[in-house]
């Protein structure tokens, strides 16, 4: 928990030191937008970089019984 707090503190210091940092840290609502934007970008990256093949599966054709039963 302490590590997380220290990490958050470092994150805020970095953002504040940037020339455009104050654009995003004027208030809690802007910070929420920054977090939302980061989540969105991470999600887009995760989706597009996922290498699991997305196969289009065709339905298996029903096989009729040889003895004519339905």
């Amino acid at each position, binding site marked *: 928990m302490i590590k997380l707090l220290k990490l958050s503190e470092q994150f805020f210091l970095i953002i504040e030191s940037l020339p455009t940092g104050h654009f995003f840290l004027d208030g809690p*609502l*802007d910070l929420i*937008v920054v977090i*939302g*934007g*980061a989540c969105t970008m991470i999600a887009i990256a995760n989706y597009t970089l996922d290498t699991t093949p997305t196969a*289009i599966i065709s339905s298996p054709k029903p096989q009729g019984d040889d003895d004519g039963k339905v």
Partner: protein
Amino acid sequence: MNSSNKLSLRSAILIGVCLQNAGYTLVRKYSTQTENVSSSEVLLVAEAIKLLIATWLTITSNENSDAQGTGIDKLKWLLLNSKKMFILAGIYGAMNILSFVALKHIGAGEFTICAQLKILTTAGFSVLIMRTTLSSARWRALALLVFGCILVASPSFSGVQRSDAMILQLFGYSAVLTEVALSGFASIYFEKVVKSTSEVVTIWERNFQLGIYSIIMYSGIILYGWNSSTNTRVPWSNWSLLTLLVSLLGAGGGLLVAATLKYADSIMKTLAAAGAIVLSTVLGNSHRS
């Protein structure tokens, strides 16, 4: 077309969708703040521009298509064989009505939150109808995307609480959730139609078919508004070059949607749209600062 060209084309289209959506959002926001123009008129002009471009491309295109005839005969054939686009236009009309009904009974913030669920409904219908498979990583990414979009859209949430009865609020939520489900279904339906191999029709021909029905729908909405007893606006008043730009961007978006569904898929379209939300928010904040 080889795979690297396909990837380049797909990437270009998705970047185009992202930039178009962001530009459209910002320009429309500026226009609504500085001008008093009917949004239905803007949408009608956008559909008219889209129809003109689609008609010209349909007549001049040499792409392989099942559409018969040339010139006006081809357009007549397309109109007579446009059942699939008629269904899609009906779905879009129902979505508009449901949005209107929902916003009467629930707040804009709640509506926006529910609207982000269309990302998941699109993925769900893609699995059900297109029989695609999505890995658990992609499902998690989509869930994170919904969360991120809600946070990005949060500044637009007003603190005004609706005081409607619980039953009316439930009705509003039902309307928006139905609209969200229809949105996902419409995307996948359109994708299935443009990627169909049994009936090969180019995306410009599909845009022509859809444009005809969209124009009829918006014309009906405008005429209803003009005949309304509460209407005091002069029709087609306050138009400017900025308003025309909004319509042009809207038309461009409509044309890009079909291209996205043809060369990418519905889920990639939602990703591009989500990227546009972030981009327009960042650019909007930068302008304000």
